């Protein structure tokens, strides 16, 4: 290929949607050169956003900010290795693909951080009996029994904003962390559980408390949200 043709090819590649770039990346064995170009373009589009996302994740989960670049590195490694799993947007527009990619990368980064938090290399992680139990021995009916009278689960924008407001204004920093961890761990845990036992133990250690105290903290936090939303609704 002449230099002019290659330059023209690259310039066309710059206009491609993320879906096409991931396609090139997934076909590395056929055309490694094109895969490298595609990776560089994806990198240019998303590197700053993903770095910021990783910084936010570390901040939200109280992990030292210095780990954000490690998290971003592993995220990019996984994106590169799993290019064939990219799930394209139904919307063919350029921006829709950008948003889809960022959502996917955020999910990968979040999952990776959860994995690290579960990792036995974590400082002060407890071992032994508690970890043998597999999963936390509480279930969602604890929340429901507590809140059934206080909180009617309608998923309206107004209610969502009230829940977010209650979270910000009513909960302590510790309660916020426990609820956020519960929500995120739930996405990556076996069906019907909120948090693997090891994750709960590890979170308890990070907060210098016990898993039993964590559970109380979680219920207390949810109760505060339920009461806040209920009061505002009545008003």
């Amino acid at each position, binding site marked *: 290929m002449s230099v002019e043709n290659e330059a023209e090819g690259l310039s066309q590649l710059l206009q491609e949607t993320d879906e096409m770039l991931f396609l090139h990346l997934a076909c590395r064995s056929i055309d490694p050169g094109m895969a490298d170009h595609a990776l560089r373009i994806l990198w240019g589009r998303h590197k700053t956003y993903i770095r910021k996302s990783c910084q936010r994740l570390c901040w939200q989960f109280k*992990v030292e900010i*210095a780990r954000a670049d490690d998290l971003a590195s592993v995220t990019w490694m996984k994106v590169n290795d799993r290019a064939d799993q990219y799930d394209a947007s139904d919307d063919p527009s350029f921006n829709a693909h950008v948003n889809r990619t960022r959502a996917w990368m955020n999910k990968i980064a979040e999952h990776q951080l959860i994995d690290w938090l579960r990792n036995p290399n974590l400082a002060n992680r407890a071992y032994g009996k508690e970890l043998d139990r597999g999963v936390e021995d509480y279930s969602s009916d604890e929340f429901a029994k507590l809140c059934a009278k206080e909180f009617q689960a309608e998923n309206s924008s107004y209610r969502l904003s009230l829940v977010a407001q209650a979270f910000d204004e009513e909960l302590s920093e510790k309660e916020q962390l426990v609820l*956020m961890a519960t929500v995120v761990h739930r996405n990556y845990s076996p069906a019907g559980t909120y948090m693997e036992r090891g994750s709960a133990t590890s979170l308890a250690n990070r907060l210098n408390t016990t898993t039993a105290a964590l559970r109380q903290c979680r219920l207390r936090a949810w109760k505060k949200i339920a009461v806040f939303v209920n009061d505002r609704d009545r008003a």
Partner: protein
Amino acid sequence: MKKIQTDRAHVDLGERLLIILEEALRRSGRLLPVTARQVSSEQSKKSQLDANTDDQPDWYDDPFAVIERGRHLFGHPPVLVPYATASSTAKNALALAARNGKPISQEIRRIMDVDRRKSENA
């Protein structure tokens, strides 16, 4: 392990409550957006999503170096320092990240000073 008897209706409601909580936290930016719609909505709300690149390490300019580094870290996970034992430097860095790298405004600092004095005198 003791099997807990659960009422299906309660379990379903509990699940819905957690889904609502997650949606609320993702929409408000307390958790990262993980759907294209959430990313789009966040970007329309916040104009300053770019990371502070002043502290960006040199190796972060090269995607191939970053991926290699990621491959190494994947096999050798880092030791995460618990929040409670993080140094004050790390806490300051976290606070800086929370402010998107911006300095504390005079007005906020004044309020902080007043609060600090109140708590010292309490």
